[in-house]
């Protein structure tokens, strides 16, 4: 399956210069105008698809979820009164659809959150003494990061992707997730901390594999 990846876009969709045309498109879509539905879809589908893809990790599911999210949105577009940004409204529906699917699908019935265990002695972060330094080792490449994001609990994953990848502010995320700004900040920090741990685990696994390969190679050389 081919999907084109655009360059990173840190512009907040709600502050897009296309806001005026978006408002007009919403008004026309409320009257059932086909072209306006397509316009709204084209405006937002790339961000919504990116979010779905990162949340579920595979294109067929991401396509289904995005379609479901837009379907729900367009079914209710007549009720949109503009109290919140259209983008926030759409992302809230998307997140709901995705989390609902993940709740049904996740076999271990994992919580959407996951407690990051604090260090027992200091009460501070688990620092994994002797663990590799990600900054110095350059371990945070795109592939490793994408893989680790997939391993995050869904709630952490949502906040991390919305804030650190898609550029939403905490007040917007609070609107999307239906939580407080403080909760959004806290979830984001825990997500980052958990990601660090996952990347460190990856590094340890890689180092172990390399040591094993080196030993095998040395054994063959003897």
């Amino acid at each position, binding site marked *: 399956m081919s999907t084109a990846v655009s360059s990173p876009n840190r512009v907040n969709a709600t502050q897009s210069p296309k806001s005026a045309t978006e408002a007009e498109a919403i008004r026309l879509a409320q009257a*059932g105008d086909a072209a306006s*539905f397509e316009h709204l*879809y084209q405006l937002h589908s790339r961000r919504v698809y990116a979010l779905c893809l990162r949340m579920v990790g595979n294109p067929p599911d991401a396509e289904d979820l995005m379609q479901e999210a837009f*379907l729900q949105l367009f079914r209710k577009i007549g009720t949109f009164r503009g109290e919140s940004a259209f983008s926030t409204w759409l992302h809230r529906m998307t997140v709901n659809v995705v989390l609902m699917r993940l709740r049904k699908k996740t076999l271990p019935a994992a919580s959407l959150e996951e407690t990051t265990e604090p260090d027992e002695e200091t009460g501070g*972060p688990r*620092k994994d003494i002797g663990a590799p330094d990600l900054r110095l080792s350059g371990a945070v490449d795109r592939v490793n*990061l994408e893989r680790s994001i997939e391993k995050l609990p869904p709630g952490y994953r949502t906040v991390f992707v919305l804030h650190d990848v898609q550029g939403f502010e905490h007040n917007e995320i609070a609107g999307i997730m239906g939580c407080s700004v403080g909760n959004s900040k806290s979830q984001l920090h825990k997500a980052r901390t958990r990601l660090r741990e996952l990347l460190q685990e990856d590094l340890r696994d890689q180092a172990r594999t390399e040591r094993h390969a080196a030993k095998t190679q040395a054994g063959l050389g003897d």
Partner: protein
Amino acid sequence: MQCKDVELVLEHEGLEPLPEEARAHLAECRECRNYIADLTSLVDAAKKLPAEITPPDRVWIALRAQLEEEGIIKVPAEVLPVEQSSWWQSINAFFSNRVLATAMVGILIAAAAVFQIRSDRTAPVVSPDRVAGTGTSIPAAKTAGAELAELSVPQTSGEFDRTARDLSEQEPVATGMIVASRSPIDASLRDNLKKVNEFIAECERHLKEQPQDELTREYLSAAYQQKAELLSAMIERGRSIN
């Protein structure tokens, strides 16, 4: 400030800007410095990930079909001339469905192929005299009839037969690959395939009644093209799912 206080600051305020007390702690605590450096690296790397990814066109096609089916998108009714025959109206109605209209690009290609087939057929008509002159034992009148039959009954010609046979062989394979899927996209693909099959049957029926109808032949060719695209999409979806 201690390590746990730094953790609280990060949880409540994020990475930037760190308050003076936290910065003072970092100056003395290597572990916290590394911890924050790691988190900063993470955030920097995340900002470089693409925030937008273009979805495949089929998502909008399926979504649009669903919106039309539910009456959310209002499709303006087409005004058709009264004198149009029923089969022509059904073709118009069929193509007014935007789901299939998007595949009209394929029709242009297919139509070109049909014109090519037609020109190939009309060119090599061999005169009975010439066949007799070659010494062949086939009666001239029979040969001419066979040629005429080939020209006048295109739905049994090799091109259409072979295409229809190939597609029929592929159809159970392709539909089988998404048979268990409840995805709206796969449901839409199945629904479209059903419509295309109905349209093909209608074209074939019409060609039996009016074998000389070139327009129907073109529609049939285009329908085969659409069917091939739908089967291909099903196979692609099936591979992704499985």
